[in-house]
């Protein structure tokens, strides 16, 4: 009985510790980049929220194709603990701004600029688009390679599952 209690306490402590560690060490919260308005955005501000981190480029047709459905996904979860952050890596602010002006859909989620492309190496991104879904503690729960129709059932269900307490 004593042994079982000890094991239970130990397991509980381990679970709590790993939870804290994953939040503290999350690659997400170490990121900080300017948006197209040149305001610095630190992703640690999204602690406690489910975050869909998307990597894209203006020269990548499938990335552009999925943008409108990503906007619809953002609108679907408006007011909930969910954020979409799209990082344009390796492109200048002018290139991204010009692209957004030409786009038929107005994007209300965060578009950040990683002009030096350091996140490509940090996240191991080798193809575009690539998206990462993080839970409220900043733990990576899904890697999505390639484009998606983000407001389809499968993707919506995935976000809903991540939002469940």
């Amino acid at each position, binding site marked *: 009985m004593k042994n079982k209690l000890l094991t239970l306490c130990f397991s509980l402590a381990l679970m709590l510790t790993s939870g804290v560690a994953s939040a503290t060490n999350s690659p997400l919260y170490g990121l900080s980049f300017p948006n197209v308005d040149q305001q610095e955005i630190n992703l640690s501000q999204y602690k406690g929220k489910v975050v869909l981190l998307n990597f894209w*480029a203006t*020269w*990548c*047709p499938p990335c552009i194709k999925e943008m409108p459905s990503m906007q619809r996904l953002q609108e679907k979860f408006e007011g909930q603990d969910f954020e979409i952050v799209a990082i344009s*890596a*390796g492109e200048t602010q002018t290139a991204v701004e010009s692209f957004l002006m030409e786009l038929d859909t107005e994007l209300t989620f965060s578009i950040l600029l990683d002009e030096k*492309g350091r996140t*490509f*190496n940090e*996240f*191991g*991104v*080798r*193809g*575009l688009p*690539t998206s*990462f879904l993080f839970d409220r503690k900043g733990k*990576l729960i899904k*890697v999505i*390679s390639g484009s998606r129709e983000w407001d389809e059932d499968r993707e919506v269900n995935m976000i809903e599952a991540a939002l469940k307490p």
Partner: protein
Amino acid sequence: MRHLLLLCLLAATLFSPGYAHVLVEEDSAQIGETEIPFLRYRDTTAPNSKGVLLWYEPHYGDFKAQPVARRLAEHGFIVIQPNWFEAFFLPRSYASFGEMDDQVMNDFVVHMKPNQSTPVYLIGASRGAVAALKTQTSRNAQIRGLIALNPSIYKQKPEPFQPVTFVDAAAHCSVPVVILQPKQSTRIWWMNEVEKILTTGGAKVRSVFLENVRDGFWQRPDITQAEVARKAVFHQDIIAAINTLETLNEE
């Protein structure tokens, strides 16, 4: 069917003013029990060729004549474009390059060399670079170098946050390599690891970045205006790469 294709290619060649002297022939080579179909581009008016370029295609797209290869033939090179997938009865897939018989590929290179003094260069596009790396070990052919076009030389498809492994041949490359890498690509962020693995076997490596174009731009169906312009002069990039290979050989 093959004869019809050959006829079409000949007709296209004859009626195309830009390629007035370039002949594109469909042929095949018998290496042991393997028949290797290939396209040969050559200038029928050139007395001597400047060299043989073995052009290895990627796994995507259709096997068809490349306008860039025609341009290279116009400039005095014989371009050989083997269809490895058909030769080895393999699907056009990412993994197929790992299943190709190195010995047959090596023997093919020797077989296609017209004489001892003709220089041979390899061109590997995307996963085609894996095939090129496998054949650069063909000592008898005395290959002068490899031009890698947006090379993809991983053993398996890389996954985020996972370490990558390269095909074994990458670490055994001993001929000079010039990488022509479009800048509109995620590969530019991983050039260091590609260069590093290629130099492991003693190869001298130079990388050239191509502005405003994407990987495989010379054969993309969704080609942009900037890519059309670059495609028209891409043969010059390749000729410059050949010159770099020769410089590296002399160093």
